[in-house]
């Protein structure tokens, strides 16, 4: 579905993403992992056409730069790492904007089933009771769920999520990741997500790209990438020992 070929992103003299290539196929949940500053979020912004880059990104065999913004948004839904709203929009209004790409223009059409998708997105993310609440009154986790609901309402083929577990408590982490897992089971869908929690990556991911200082350190099936050798090399520490130590506290 998505083919990233030799993509490089530079900010002045700094190379943030260095000649990166990978493919995302139908049914895959590709986890993008790596330490801070590895260029994971920049890569996501690059795919969503928010950052200038060299190289090629193809979506269904066609250069992504040739898609109009609304065409691209019908194929790819992006959940950013940081979300904030300056004005007192309601949860329903923010989620409803997810239908923009399907009904551009002053009058949003109600005939495309969009209203049902908005309702379903509100229900799935547990936001129904808050639908008329101002987003300014929401907690970080509720706001994160609001933007996730917006992406669901957008009904794309590929979900691109930058730290979807941000601000979520354990209950909602489990709920949201299970939800995405369910979403992925339908045909013609794929997920690319940035995660810092390697346990979540291992539990839900099918494939992974491990990044370090802009470069790809390893990629492939999740069990082949998230190995002690690869992780220790990228994080400069014994990751497995640290995770065992954390877990042993609960014994």
């Amino acid at each position, binding site marked *: 579905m998505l083919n990233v070929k030799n993509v490089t992103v530079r900010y002045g003299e700094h190379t943030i993403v260095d000649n990166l290539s990978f493919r995302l196929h139908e049914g895959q949940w590709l986890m993008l992992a790596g330490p801070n500053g590895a260029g994971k979020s920049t890569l996501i*912004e690059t795919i*969503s*056409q*928010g950052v*200038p880059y060299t190289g090629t990104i193809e979506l269904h065999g066609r250069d992504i730069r040739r898609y*109009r*913004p*609304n*065409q*691209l*948004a*019908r194929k790819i*839904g*992006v959940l*950013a790492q940081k*979300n*904030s*709203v*300056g*004005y*007192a*929009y*309601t949860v329903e*209004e*923010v989620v409803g*904007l*997810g239908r*923009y*790409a399907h009904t*551009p*223009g*002053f009058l*949003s059409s109600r005939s495309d089933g969009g209203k049902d998708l908005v309702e379903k997105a509100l229900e799935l993310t547990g936001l129904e009771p808050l639908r*008329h*609440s*101002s987003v300014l*009154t929401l907690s970080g986790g509720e706001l994160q769920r609001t*933007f996730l609901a*917006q992406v669901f309402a*957008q009904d794309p083929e590929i979900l691109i999520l930058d730290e979807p577990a941000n601000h979520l408590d354990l209950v909602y982490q489990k709920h949201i990741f299970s939800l995405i897992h369910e979403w992925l089971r339908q045909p013609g869908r794929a997920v690319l997500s940035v995660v810092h929690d390697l346990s979540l990556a291992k539990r839900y991911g099918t494939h992974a790209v491990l990044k370090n200082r802009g470069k790809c350190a390893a990629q492939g099936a999740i069990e082949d990438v998230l190995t002690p050798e690869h992780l220790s090399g990228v994080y400069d520490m014994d990751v497995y020992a640290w995770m065992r130590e954390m877990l042993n506290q609960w014994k």
Partner: protein
Amino acid sequence: MKSLPERFSWRVYVLFAAALTAAMLLCICVGSVSIPLGNTLTALWHTLWKMEVPAGISKNIILNVRLPRVINVALIGASLSLCGAAMQGLLRNPLADGSTLGVSSGASLGAVISLAFGVSIPGVEYGGTILMAMGFAFLSLILILSLAYALDRSMSTNSIILIGVIFSMFTSSAMNLIITFAGDHAKTIAFWTMGSLSGTGFHHAAILSSALLICGGVILRYARELNAFAIGEDNARHIGVNVRQVKLIILIMVSVLIGVCVSIGGTISFVGLVMPHMTRMIVGPNHKRLLVSSMFSGAIFLLLADLAARTLLSPIELSIGVVTSLVGAIAFVVIFYRTRKAR
């Protein structure tokens, strides 16, 4: 907490329209010469149906002096407020208004040059000033957008605001320099820069209403996109808004509208800043409602400000900009204080 939009209904538009009509009638009736409401309505009714206005009614004051002024004031108030609401949404900044971009400063510079050097169009009162102001507004827009593009190819909001602020400072210095050497014209220039709508006629109303119809219509067409921008520029891109194209169109429309307003009414501050704020408190932030409601509220506010400017120190007429700045600044501080306190 339930938010404001849930309580919104079409009744709000009806109330706004009724308040606007009342304010317009009040402004026609009250002034150095008071005119009874009945006489005003009779004169307007008879003129509308092309009938002879009955004798004893001050037809000239109503139809040739106050009516065009009132229409112009309402149109400028609506335009400035609409531009403010659009800019506050587009730039996701509640402190933005039509002047943030620096285009109104550019228009003012054009007008000041024409007044200082006596640029005129034969047969058209203040024609030179209007033409120069509009021309400079357009040139300013091109310059600001070119500089913003050269600085940052993505034309980020911060770059545009930064260039706008710097450009405004530059034009302000240039205007002061011109005023220093303007000699006898200095007083006219000073009064014009504070804003005044005395002596404006129906031909000005025709220009203003055409600009509002075209530019305002385009801005209203982009209400959904403005909602997306108000939530966040990145989010707007993610949901499929053509960010650069929409931003460019809105900025051009705002600039043209501001340029026309400044060229006819001078610099009238705070309307575009305060009125969208107050309107947002009534109808919520959704631009589908906010833009139209802001036009109503801006028109009403400027009508009352113009009435105060004409009558407070009568027979001396204050400039309208003095009143809007005084009232607007106080209102803004009160709103800001209350908003902060409520958090």
